[in-house]
């Protein structure tokens, strides 16, 4: 990959990588750090990465960087974890998207990641499998379970409303 191609990747993919990480982490600073780290990693390996596979590499690197960060944070804030589910029904929701993202927050990390890769980026099961390192059948199961969970959450909210 040339420097020009690398810079084009920055223009083309940094937004989507940032969105993917931000939606997962819900922390702008951390998301920016992950994006910086991810592009740094790609720059180091730029000679060995073709432009055509750059997006897949970026999402894969970003995903794994994010997982590492989440695991590190979990160790640090294990006892401070707040059960969001206990409070969620008492809050007012402005629109469906907000509700959906509330529901998304409650998904397991793996389910959330694969659903976002699927819906935001339109990746196939195989591509998600390559990015996350899960098998295709695992990806499929995570998506199915995630959707079921989201549907149940939306159903409960609608019933309340």
């Amino acid at each position, binding site marked *: 990959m040339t420097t020009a191609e690398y810079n084009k990747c*920055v223009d083309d993919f940094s937004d989507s990588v940032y969105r993917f990480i931000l939606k997962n982490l819900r922390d702008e600073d951390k998301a920016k750090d992950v994006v910086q780290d991810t592009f740094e990693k790609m720059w180091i390996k730029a000679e060995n990465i073709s432009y055509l596979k750059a997006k897949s590499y970026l999402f894969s690197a970003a995903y794994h960087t994010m997982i590492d960060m989440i695991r590190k944070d979990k160790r640090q804030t294990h006892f401070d974890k707040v059960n969001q589910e206990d409070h969620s029904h008492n809050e007012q929701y402005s629109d469906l998207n907000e509700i959906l993202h509330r529901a998304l927050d409650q998904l397991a990390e793996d389910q959330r990641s694969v659903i976002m890769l699927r*819906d935001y980026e339109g990746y196939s099961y195989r591509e998600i499998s390559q990015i996350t390192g899960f098998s295709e059948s695992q990806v499929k199961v995570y998506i199915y379970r995630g959707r079921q969970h989201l549907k149940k959450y939306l159903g409960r909210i609608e019933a309340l409303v």
Partner: protein
Amino acid sequence: MDYLDGIMSPDRVIKLMSFLKENPDLKTELEEFEEINVDPDKKRFESKRTLKKAFLVNDSNFDDLCIASLEGDLTQEEATLFQKWLQQKPLKVREFELYKKTRLIPEKISFDFKSTLKRRPVSRIFTPKVWGYFSAAASIIILIALYLFISKPGVNENTLISEKITDTTTIKIKSQTSPESQAKTDTKEEIIPYNKPGDSKQPKNTARGNAIVEKQVVVQDLSIGLDKSNHFIQPDTIELTLNKIRRKEINTLPEKSIIAALVSIKDLEVVENINDNLDLSQMAVKTFKSEILKEEKSKINPDKFTLWDIADAGIRGINKIIGWEMEFNKEYDDEGELIALAFDSNAISLYHTMNK
């Protein structure tokens, strides 16, 4: 058996037939084998349909089919059947609509720090490898220049003068003061002890053969104190700093040669004192500039050594080797700051003003 199975080679079949002619009993036995023939049965399993699974939509697989429909995992036929089933189940339609709402809508989120991620194109000319070649070439040029410009140490004046001074053990500096100077200062007689060669007290660190320099005589304005007519030195004009006195190895020292000796010491110190209080790098810079760049010693700043100096030396070296007439000149302001560079050759002339 191979013959019956039809996998025997023709040569072996011919041999087998000739063998059977000679053994008719065995031929009869083989013919009996040929009569045994089992035909494949053409019967079929008629209940294949019971094993096949039809695409069915029911309450138990409804959720899976909803998601499969959303993900595009259903075939066209399956999707049609699913839609038909849904039309018959209005309650399920509402559930399916909920599933549809689980699809995330991409938001417009932009990363505002793209510029920090971007990289400048790296010059392909000045790769690390090329820099390595440049460095090696520069080193070679400097070495050649050093070799060409620095003259080899020969017999200098001090050595010649010191050679005239022979056969004595002390250097006496007698005092002969004028009445005027007597009034100002006390007269002195200083004796600088001399150790003969082989003496146990002789210092071990000697320099250049006979010219042993151990202490240094600092002579201030010797021309004033030197009275050639009397062959004496007025001591009040001489400041002897014993911890800096240099001793010269002198074999004989006739009294009349004292002046010569002191003159030689003076000359020696004047030359050597230039490098006083300079560290190794400063001395190297000073030597480089004086010997190679031919700068005036009094104007040399040993603390300043730039790439331009190396370039200048390189050009001089090239001129000397191949006979060109390239010139590399520098202009300084009153404060000694470099203000301009000029390069001149038969082919090209350049003038560059330095930015401050």
